[in-house]
């Protein structure tokens, strides 16, 4: 069953075509990787799905309903949560308060929100840092805080924008484990942007490749790894020795 369907989406900023006629489907329960060289339009795609930008052409469907012109907070209520590539912690709030603020969306009182928040912090191994002011967390933990906040909104779908970038190998392993547990233990569907090839190849069920705003390939990690068009986009034409 398709949860999100992206249908012929184009997004233009003035004369710049950031996305041209992109279509793909995110199925329930899968981890779909979104990869592509720098400037391919991956984050723009997230911003369109998430509601920050309306698409210039085309539609985004959530469970068959058109959601292209809804605002991010509405999409969040409908079950789409996201993290940011450039982390955006609520800086002068403690880690716990960050997560409580996002837990309020599906809870009534503060006690309930706090309960949800503490549970999520345990899930993401941030429990010991709960009273730290979030701007003083190291990058690895801030990236995890992004995930924790997204989880606290109890989403059905989570969009992860480069949650592994800038992490050291230990942190990457820990993060991979968390992402896998998000799917296995919580049954949340994941759309993930990632540059780290080893991670994306091992974690994804399917991969969509963007280049210059167009979809150039789609398939299992194995297929993508062998696809000559993808290799060309990443490494240039001369690489056919």
């Amino acid at each position: 069953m398709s949860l999100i369907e992206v249908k012929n989406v184009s997004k233009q900023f003035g004369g710049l075509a950031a996305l041209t006629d992109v279509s793909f489907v995110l199925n329930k329960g899968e981890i779909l990787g979104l990869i592509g060289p720098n400037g391919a339009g991956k984050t723009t795609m997230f911003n369109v799905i998430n509601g920050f930008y309306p698409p210039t052409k085309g539609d985004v469907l959530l469970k068959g309903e058109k959601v292209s012109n809804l605002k991010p907070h509405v999409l969040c209520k409908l079950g789409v949560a996201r993290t940011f590539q450039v982390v955006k912690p609520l800086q002068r709030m403690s880690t716990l308060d960050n997560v409580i603020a996002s837990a309020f969306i599906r809870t009534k009182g503060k006690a309930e929100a706090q309960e949800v928040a503490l549970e999520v912090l345990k899930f993401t191994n941030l429990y010991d840092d709960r009273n730290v002011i979030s701007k003083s967390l190291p990058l690895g933990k801030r990236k995890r805080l992004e995930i924790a906040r997204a989880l606290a909104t109890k989403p059905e779908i989570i969009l992860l924008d480069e949650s592994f970038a800038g992490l050291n190998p230990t942190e990457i392993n820990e993060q991979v484990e968390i992402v896998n547990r998000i799917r296995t233990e919580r049954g949340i569907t994941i759309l993930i942007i990632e540059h780290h090839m080893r991670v994306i190849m091992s974690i994804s069920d399917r991969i969509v490749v963007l280049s210059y705003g167009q979809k150039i390939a789609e398939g299992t990690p194995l297929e993508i790894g062998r696809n000559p068009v993808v290799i060309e986009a990443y490494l240039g034409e001369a690489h056919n020795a």
Partner: protein
Amino acid sequence: MKKFLPLIILAILCILPLIGLSSYVMHIFILVLMWSVIGMGWNILGGYTGQVSFGHAAFFGMGAYTSGLLYQHLGISAWWGLPVCVVILTVLSLIIGYICLRLRGAYFALATLALGEVCRVAAENLVGFTQGNMGIMLRERTWVDKTWYFYVILIIAAGAFFLIKQVMESKLGYYFVAIREDQDAAESLGINTTFYKTISLCLSGVLTGIAGAFYMNYMGYIDPSMVFALSEVSIATVMVVMVGGAATYWGPLVGAVIMVFLAEVIRSLPHIGAAHQTIFGIILIFIIMFLPNGIVGDYRKLLKPFKSRKGASS
């Protein structure tokens, strides 16, 4: 102890008029409480929600004029201005919010700055309605003695303090601070930022307006350049909160104490004439340079010299 601090201070303030202070000292205390209400109002929007306004004179003046015009045109007691201005300012805040809150940061500040000035010019020129620069005068004041005015503003200030405390510990408070820290992140966490900014503006505007309505009753006379003043009201409001400490419970009260006392002390210095404003300005620059988070926000910094000395001697 800390939990009871607000109640202790409230109790002290309650018995204050009973010890027979002079009328001038009571006047100062009334001004301090009134400014702390205005500061608390501004603090909701500017401190907690991060939308800095340079036009709170618009709300203050609108509250004062609500009171004054009710008296002038309907011939009812100006005290009706207190409840009525809640309605008027909610409506006004919704309109202003609809127009201004789509702007961010400096643009919002500039829009509010213009708003205050627009209100002043309007009040000056709608002579038939507001009596223009002649202002509005209450023919008789409710009480000659200041004690009852003191209790009225004390009730308003205490009410505002506990209301804000309640709000900030609830979902609303978390949302306000989330919007201040990062609007895009807040939006993607399911917070309808425009809606909650508007609520914040309404709370802020209503509190400031109530202080304005009280001002009309207390002073007995208002004119546009008094209540819609840019520097004397709008900027002074920002200063009260900045000096006291933005986004703190006690900041507006501490700021109001310092601003009112400082203004009075400097004004009464001999032989300096109009230079008192210059001195006032210089002192404020120093406070902001060395205590950017205000006195409540940076009080640990203030205590530091005393603490280290103690540590060295022991």
